[in-house]
Structures are given as C-alpha cells and as structure tokens.
C-alpha cells in the first residue's frame, strides 16, 4: 500500500489582522504552518503505516521555504517528501494547482511505486476552497471521497476503501475502489507529535525537489498564472451593517421581557413566522 499526502504550507490566516486605519493586511509575524487539515491526512496515512506497513509519501507545491513543512511531516514519520517548486508555478489558482499536484502524484507513482490513496485536507487556511482535492482526483482519474470523518476500512487485498462522509444532516457510509483521493476533516484523528527517530530523520532530511523540467510532458499553458482562469479583481473590508439598535432598559426584568415581546409582535414577524 502506497499513500500520498498532499500538504500545503500556509500563512496562519487566523493571525492576519486588518489595520483599522489603513484597511490593509498586517502580515508581520504571521507564522507559516502546515495547513492543519493536511496534518490529519498525514496522521491517517501514518496510522496505515503502523497498522499495515503502508509507505507514506508527502507532496507539496510551494516555494523553496516550504521544505520546513515537509521536514515536519518527516519528523512525524513520513517515509519521503517531494517538493515541487518553480517560479513558473507561482500565481496558480485551484485549476492550475490541481494540474501540477496531479502530475506530481503521477510521477511519484512512476518513481516510487503505484499509489493507492491520496489524502488531501478538506481545505486550506489561505485558499479555503476545498477544490484542489476533487481537482486532483479528476486529473488522475481516481475515485473521490470528500469530507471524510472516518476511514472504516482500507483493504489492501480487495483494493477498496469504506469511509464515513460528513454531510449537513448525517453521515453517509460509502465504499469505493482504489485508487482514491480522500479529503479529510479534523474529526478523523488527532495528529501525533514528532517521534525521536522522526526528528533524527528530519535533521538530515533534504526534500526531493522537482521543477517544470522534471516533468517531461507538462503543458506550460496549464501552470501558474497562465493556467489560472480566475483572477482577483478587488478586495475590500466590508462595512458593518448600520442598525438602529433599540435598547430595552429597566430594573424589572418582567417588564423588559414583555416590552421585547410586544415589540417583536408589533413587527411583521408573527405573520412571517405563521404564529
């Protein structure tokens, strides 16, 4: 069993602030982290490494500095990590990203053995689309199972996988054939800390780095900015909605409460709610 985990190094967007005076982004001191959903994908892959001896390859498309993210994955127990990095990849939207990540998984399969499962995160903190996972599945012509909160069974013998998909109102139990792209939720597991042998491996770790030249049949029209159909035309900080707040005051809560109810009942609300 060979499992590929797709990870992205992202700025921790939770830490990005807006300067209220200039309405610009304050990025100083915003740490770069491994997108946290992806760590849950890695943890699941490592579980199958522990349980059935699966081989785990991590891949990431990003700048050279993303090797830190890969190092972290190695320290947790991944067997190898590939960084796809080239200036020509810059500015990629989800369509161009899935093209390159798909090509990378194909090449990983050729060089290191056929791939059975690809784990992606549910979404990234910065891109926040959840589109790359399904995109990669299309590029590879693999089956796709998204929003997975539990892997019930992964069978090497039958080459099947059964999962729980999280939906708005319940859980769908789905089974499919390998190879498959699985996108994962945080409910799946709790990512482990680095192990001692992992840390030692990580200390001498150098990622395999592939550039466009390493992909014989890459279509340069499909990568980076050129391969990205979408474009950001503008960004803005939304104005808060202006509302005339009616404050209800008084020492007697019963009076305040009935005043609220009278107010609510004097609006269209009861009609609209069918009360």
């Amino acid at each position, binding site marked *: 069993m060979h499992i590929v985990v797709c990870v992205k190094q992202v700025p921790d967007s939770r830490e990005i602030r807006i300067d209220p005076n200039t309405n610009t982004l304050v990025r100083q001191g915003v740490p770069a982290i491994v997108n946290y959903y992806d760590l849950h994908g890695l943890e699941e892959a490592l579980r199958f490494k522990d349980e059935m001896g699966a081989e785990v390859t991590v891949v990431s498309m990003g700048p050279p500095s993303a090797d830190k993210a890969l190092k972290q994955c190695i320290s947790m127990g991944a067997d190898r990590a590939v960084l796809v990095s080239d200036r020509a990849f810059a*500015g990629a939207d989800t369509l161009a990203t899935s093209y390159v990540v798909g090509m990378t998984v194909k090449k990983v399969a050729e060089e290191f053995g056929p791939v059975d499962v690809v784990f992606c995160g549910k979404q990234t903190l910065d891109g926040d689309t959840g589109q790359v996972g399904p*995109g990669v599945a299309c590029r590879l012509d693999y089956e796709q199972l998204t929003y997975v909160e539990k892997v019930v069974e992964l069978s090497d013998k039958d080459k099947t996988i059964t999962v729980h*998909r999280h939906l708005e109102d319940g859980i769908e139990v789905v089974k499919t054939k390998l190879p498959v792209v699985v996108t994962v939720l945080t409910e799946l597991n709790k990512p482990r800390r680095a192990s001692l042998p992992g840390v030692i491996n990580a200390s001498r770790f150098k990622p395999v780095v592939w550039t466009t030249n390493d992909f014989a049949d890459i279509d340069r029209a499909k990568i980076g*900015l*050129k391969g990205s*159909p979408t474009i950001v035309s*503008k960004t803005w900080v939304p104005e808060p909605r202006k*509302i005339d707040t009616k404050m209800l005051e008084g020492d007697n809560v019963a009076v305040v409460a009935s005043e609220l109810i009278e107010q609510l009942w004097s609006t269209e609300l009861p009609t*609209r*709610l069918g009360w």
Partner: protein
Amino acid sequence: MVEGGITVAEEQNVNQKAAEPKGASRVQPVPEQDFSDYLGIMVVVEQRAGVAKKVSWQLLGEAKRMATKINAPVYALVMGHNVRHLAEEAIRRGADKVYMSDSPVLEKYRTRPYSRVSLDVIRTFKPEIVLMGATYTGRDLAGAIATHLPTGLTADCTQLDVDENRLLQASRPAFSEKMLATILCKQYKPQMATARPGVFLELPADASRSGEIIDVPSPMREEEVVTEVLDFLEQTDRINLEDHEIIVAGGKGLGSPDGFKLLQELADALGGVVGASRAVVDLKWIDHDHQVGQTGSTVRSKLYFAIGISGAVQHVVGMQNSDVIVAINRDPDAPIFKVAHYGIVGDLYEIVPAIIKAVKEKRALPFATNSSAANASVAASIQS
C-alpha cells in the same frame, strides 16, 4: 488596481490568485475554444431522497435577479431518481427551462455519474454561468466539473453580481472572513461559483410560471459506477441551522453547558433551534453543528437571539443578515449590540426566564380569544 489600500500584488494567498506585481499586465490564459454562444444562468439543484436543499431555490432567486439584468434565460439542472416534482418546483422558483436527468443510477449522489450528466448538459446547452450550493455535495461536484471542463470556479461566495460585459462578479470572504474578494473568470465559460446557503433570497413559488422540462439521459450505467453508498446514518442531533427560521444562540456567557437547557426552553417556546458561538463549541458544551459564524453556518433566520455572545466579527458574519436580532449581554459595550435590533443589558439568567414566560403567555393568547381553524393548527404545532 488598488482597492481599500490593498494592491492586487498582495493577494498571493487569496483563493484565486493574482500574483503579478502592480502595474504589470496580467497574462491571462488564452483558451482555444470560442465561448461566444454561451448564454444563460444555470443552477444545479441539490436534493436528497427527493427533497431539495433550500440553497437551490435561493440560488434560483439570485440567478433570476442577475438574468434580468443581462436579459438571459435561467436554467435549472435537476438530477436524481423520481425527481420530476423538483423540476416542476424549479420552474415555479424562477427557472425558464429545466434539464432533468431522472435515473436509478442517480438515486444517491455519487461524484462520477453526477458529474458526467452535468458535463454533458453544460457542454451541450452552454450556460454562461453555473451556480451550485456550497454544501458538502455541491462543493464535491463543482470541483469535479470545473476541472473537467476546464473552467474557473470560485468557492463559497456570499455576494454575486453580473456586469454589463456579462462577467460574473463572484465575491467571497478571504483571510478568515476579514476581507471580501471579488473574483472574475474572464476567458472561460461557463463562469462557475458555489455559494453559501442562507445568503440569498429564494423567490416565492409561483404556480403561474411555465417552463420547459428537457429529459437528459444518464450517460453511465450502474455497472460502470464503482462507488457504492452503503448507508445513511441520519443524525437527529445534528441540525442544519440554515433550515431554521428562529435561532436562539448562546455563548460563553452561559457560564456552563447547562445554560443551553435554558436556551432550549426559549427555543421550544418560540419554535426554534439552538445555535452557538465557537467559544462554547471549542469548550465542547455543544456540538459543532450548532456553530454560527465563519467556521460554522451562515444563517439568515427571521429571528436570532444572541445570548451571552460578545459579537466577535467571526460570529457576526454568520448571523448579521437575520431579519430581527435580539442581543442579551451583561456588558453594555459588547460589540454584539452594534448589529442587534433589540438589546438588553443584564444577566441572561434573569432575563431569559422572563422572556420565556412572556413568550408563553403571548403565544397562549390567540387560542383563548380566537378559535379559527388556522389557529387550531398552530396550537397543534405548538403542542407537538
């Protein structure tokens, strides 16, 4: 290209990126295909077991609004098994033409058969815009379709518009909801977007509307589909906030998980459901499905109570479009009051019981004074 002080060059990390330095002309992809005959706005209707997701009708309402601006037809795509009633409903909700694929293969959602039908319909009938709900299923399908076509796809939009050049202005939150970004797809068609449930307004069903239903065969046979849906475990405690008109939400001000019992009582008295801030979800006082806000649900309820919730921007973005907002907070300076229509400063443990009492008295009244059939049915629904 400077908007609100942000240059496009800074946008490297927004979903769809524009990484070129300021002033440089952008290298846009040049598709080989001619898209000039793409016309109309299509909404992909999502359903399970013959019941449509509300977001589908909300998107049809929004599609109709945009279509009127550019004088374009509105299409719906309905897929499933025994779903003619949904095709008819789509017409009442604003569609001029419905493409319907009704087949046992489509009984349960699976990516491949659904995307094959969608691709056939899109390639044959060429809508210029395709919209889907940003639900789990909608995002699963949209990602597959857009890659196959290929075209640009903007995720999770909260504002949509179309300009005089028929360009879809798809706006979505960026940087953890701190900003909004408008994304365009200039060179490819259709322009695709998924949009959040609860953001747009559905049109009332209009039985006088007429439209055409076009049957589309499913290109896949069951033997060709390798994915099987074995079971659906309905979670009755997993609620879908977007489906509810009255939400009574509580935050850390409740002080303990027990506080939700009180809120449940108020919710029951009003006929609503309980929502929550992230702080209490993180504390495991209540399940994530109840969370409202940036990383939870976006709701557009008719009545929203924010009780013991401070009103952090990440919470507010998920509830500010509710029709009537009532905030109860001990702190008179709590930001939640800025978005509330009615505010009460004080201890929730004194105020909420008083409100429950007042609601019960008020709602009990009509039945004592009026015995019409309509009220009798309301009474029945309250008792159940």
